[in-house]
């Protein structure tokens, strides 16, 4: 006899978990991307400054 309540809980928690894990990973990746882009911009600006001084 299938326990449909248990099956429903397994499916709901599973789907919710997959979406939340990948969603949170997506947010973390976006934030990391923004941070690295800022760092790279700063680095480029410094290089240009140095080149200008030369």
């Amino acid at each position, binding site marked *: 006899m299938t326990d449909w309540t248990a*099956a429903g809980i397994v499916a709901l928690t599973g789907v919710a*978990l997959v*979406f939340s894990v990948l969603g949170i990973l997506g947010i973390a990746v976006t934030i990391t*991307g923004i941070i690295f882009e800022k760092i790279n911009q700063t680095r480029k600006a410094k290089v240009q400054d140095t080149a200008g001084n030369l």
Partner: protein
Amino acid sequence: MEALKDMGIYHLSMGNIVMWMVAFVLFYLAIKKEIEPLLLVPIGFGIFIANFPLTGLLEEHGLFEMFYQYGIATELIPPLIFLGLGAMTDFGPVLANPKTLLLGAAAQIGVYGAFFAALLLGFSLTEAASIGIIGGADGPTSIFLSNILAPHLMGAVAVAAYSYMALVPIIIPPVARALTTKEERRIVMTPARMVSKEEKIVFPVLGCIVIILLVPKSAPLISMFMLGNLFMESGVVERLTDVSRNALMNIITILLGLGVGSRMTADTFLRLDTIGVFILGIVAFIIACAGGVLIAKLMNVFSKNKINPLIGAAGVSAVPMAARVVHIMGARENPQNYLLMHAMGPNVAGVIGTAVCAGALISSLT
């Protein structure tokens, strides 16, 4: 007469011969059609030899039994395959467009759709979960999960998963076409941004922190996947990267194939359950493709930068074949469309999603 009884031929059953036919079909698909040959040749050969009587290969300390016990029953081989996969995977497309992670998640709906379908057909919860994971289109994850939840179905689940992965070019186009309009298929996506090397190096560590903290049972697969990727992206352990993606991968593929094939003896495979696994496997695949496409369409409702919903279908793992199929479909609708790199995002995210899904199922059902 006694001497005859010691010969295999005396004990050969019709079931053994039918299983040889199954092995020959796999040889045909692998050698003639070049469908997943790296796996179907060893799996087919495992099936072939496992169905010879009196060999002792499947008894305790038998050769094939040891491949299975030490490699698969201990859950050693699937994570090692993930190590090799990680060392071959470029996460750039995901990092450039993190939204695609949601498409990888969406494709996992197929796992749960097939899970319910399997329950309706009378399979138990653990069996249904093992069958449903076929929808993730990820062979090692399917083997990993079914070995824990329903070891008696592992052979059928593995063969179904690898067979359907090979059928991705046939399964995806009709599903994706049915769920999209011509205009949607013609959407040209804006080129993705360049991803720095540093971002790629940080991702495996970040991925471990986020995924393993939330779904600890996914750790065997995710940790190895990310380690392989760190090997590759760091650029300082070329030898380890090379071994992970080549020598190690090849060795464990042989052991995995023989271990899985050896489980497929006539008495375990020639059952109604096996037919059920194959039917439900394709149901899982179709729902997975549909889930990805529909979520992509839903995302377009809220997003300014439209995404081509075809790339949602690449959320089923099957890397990189699913992405290639989507790319070809897009290019046929609009020759200006270059979807390959965009489709690689959900494609790679699908691998992570299936591993997370497996971890969630193990947590719930063990």
